[in-house]
Every structure is written in C-alpha cells, then in structure tokens.
C-alpha cells in the first residue's frame, strides 16, 4: 500500500490498509488500481496532509503514530472534506 510512512513506528499491512480506507472514506482519496502517478492533489500524502491539518496535528504528509491513533477513534461516517 503506497502510504508514505514516518519511520517512528512499525505499521502492519493491515494498518496501512485501514489508513487507506480511512482516507478514502473521509478525505475523498480515489482508488488508484493502475498505480499510474495521480495528480498531486489526490495522492495519499496530500490526503494525509489534509487530515493532519483538519485535526491540528503536525502536517507531515506521512502516516505517523499520532495520526494513526486518531484514525482509530470512534467517529461520524460523514466525510470531513469533499462532496
């Protein structure tokens, strides 16, 4: 899973899939089955930045422990951004 990672934490593949699903559900990350480079606005890194900015976390564009911990919290299913 092409998730930019912060080297502070070991994430399992399942963690990464969860993070990808989270960004798809709440930050309008589009699937990219072909793996061809997407427009920069829809990369995983840009969506991570969007989420980190929304929650007032340090904006790194990388999945770090704090961002992942926040993804675990129970929440509303309506997206935070987008249509």
């Amino acid at each position, binding site marked *: 899973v092409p998730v930019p990672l912060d080297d502070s934490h070991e994430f399992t593949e399942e963690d990464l899939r969860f993070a990808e699903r989270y960004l798809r559900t709440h930050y309008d990350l589009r699937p990219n089955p072909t793996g061809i480079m997407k427009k920069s606005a829809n990369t995983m890194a840009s969506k991570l930045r969007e989420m980190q900015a929304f929650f007032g976390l340090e904006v790194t564009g990388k999945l770090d422990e704090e961002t992942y911990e926040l993804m675990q919290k129970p929440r509303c*299913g309506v997206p935070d951004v987008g249509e």
Partner: protein
Amino acid sequence: YNFFPRKLKWSKTNLTYRIMSYTSDLRRAEVERAFKRAFKVWSDVTPLNFTRIRSGTADIMISFGTKEHGDFYPFDGPSGLLAHAFPPGPDYGGDAHFDDDETWSNDSRGYNLFLVAAHEFGHSLGLEHSRDPGALMFPIYTYTGKSGFVLPDDDVQGIQELYGAGDRDPNPKHPKTPEKCAADLSIDAVTKLRGEMLVFKDRFFWRLHPQMVEAELVLIKSFWPELPNKIDAAYENPIKDLVFMFKGKKVWALNGYDIVEGFPKKINEMGFPKEMKRIDAVVHIDDTGKTLFFTGNKYWSYDEETEVMDTGYPKFIEDEFAGIGDRVDAVYQRNGYLYFFNGPLQFEYSIWSKRIVRILHTNSLFWC
C-alpha cells in the same frame, strides 16, 4: 464550522422527522426521548421546529442498521463509524442512520445516543464537520458528561448563519473554545507528562511537544472521561510516573490514560486542613523532591518521599516569592526556574537567586 458545498439548507423552518426503526440497546421511549432532545439542541437556537410523524415520508427519516444498509455507505461493525447523515435535500436528504453494531446508551456507557444524534442532526440541517475540537460538529466522539449539554458557540454560529437566531434560547451562554494566542489568555493549570507539557483551560488542554511549535488542543474528557472540566491544579511526580489533578476538595491520580484506583481522594487526606477549599496551583521540584501547593496567598511544602507535609507551613507566598502577586493560577518548573502564572502574565522566578528574572505574557507559552 463548515457547510456542505453549495451551502445546502432547508428552505422551510417547520421540519418533520420519523423514527423508522429502533435499537434493542434502549427502550423505545428512551430512543424517542434521545432524538427529541437532540432536535431541541438545534431548535433552541434557531427558528426551526421539529415535529415527529408516525407514518409517511418525513424530511428526516431516522433508522438503525448494520454494515450495508441500503445507501451504499456501509457501516463497519462495532466502533469505527458510529452513524452518518445526509445534508438537506429530497429523498435521502436529511436522513440519519445509526450503526446498530454499536452499543447505544443514555449515559457514558458505549455511545450516548443523544450526543451522536445531536451531531448527526447537525448534518441533516446543513452543517459539515468542524475543525474546532470543542464543537458538537467535530467528527470524533467524546462523551461530554452527565451535566446538562449546552451547544458550543462554534455550532451556534454555524447553524445561525444558515437559519438565523431563534428567540427562545434557554442557555444563551454557549461555551467558547479558547484561543491560545489571545492577549488576555489566562490558564487553569499546567503540568508535565512524560516529556510533554499539558496546559489546562476550561474543558480543554493543550498538548505541547518539546520539539513542536504547534500545540494540539484536546477536550479533557476525550482523554479522561471521568475528570471534571476546568481543573484547578496539576503536577507530575516523575518518580511514581503519576500525574495528580485537583479540583475543589478532590484529587485524582492518573497513570497515563488510567485513573489510579481509590481516586478521587479528599485533599485533606494529604495533610491539608479540612477547611481547605481548593488548590490553586502545584509544582513538583525534582531536585528537592518537594511539591509546593499554592492556595490563596499561602503555600505548603509536601515531601513526596515521606508523603508528609513539611512543618512550618503554610507560609505567605509574598514572603518567599516576592513580586509574583498573592494568587497563582498555575506553576511549573524547568531548568532551575519556576514559572508562575497569574492572569495574562507569567513570572520567571530563579530558584537559585530567589528572585523574578523575567515577566512574560501567559500566551508566550505557545510561542505567540
């Protein structure tokens, strides 16, 4: 506060809702009361009226479902996604769905149906998620306690921009979220916690990482649901890896997220006189192993090792810490200095030379 694209809203003020299904976690009457109270949160501050209908199609159709439940936005089993709702509009517009794989309650157990419903109905009326961690429309669930719920100011501003203000607000004083760089910022308490610094204000605390400039604002109850809001004082005993929090005559001991069993205790169990009403501020001084408690214009010294109050106290603050004023809101120690907070000012006091060496704004704590 945020709106949906095109600022979707209802073009009428009299709206209907219908409860299509129930959860087995609560009695029907409890579910109905939770939803009625949730709608009242919004009708109290706008001209909106909500009427329940028992047949036909209502503006806001409410139901419980699990996983894929008919709208192609599946729920995900226990926890995770709790509920969702659609912005104003025909058909699904305004409808609210609740994940029945959750445990719904009318108290702090599981997820409080009233709180989640009030949030979802905010979406039904046209509000999107807010970035304000104190807002009802913040996307993450936090149980905000038993005492009467009052809609935070951020949500009031948002909904009134859509529908205007009503004329029947029973609680016009809506809690605001503090601004860390406000010139007149004062704080309730400050403590270190495993290398971070926590600065308490009203329902919140800021988390300050040593390496970061940005402080993260968090609701106290999102970390410690059992703690009261607006605490009086806090300090860390690094040897025991415990943080003690004070409010009124009570003290809580925390080990990370957990409250130590047997707490809260009464502060007079620590050796304070029974008539002591509250602790204003407290600081642990690593080098001496003493903890100083400030209350009113006096302070006490407590020996952490022997767990006994030192004799000869209380003493007048002015006698030992001349110039910091006769009241302390909060205090912490760093590198041989004590930082006393009094309203919008903080006093940097040198323990070694026993005098104030600098006066700063309280908000300079946040590099403002």
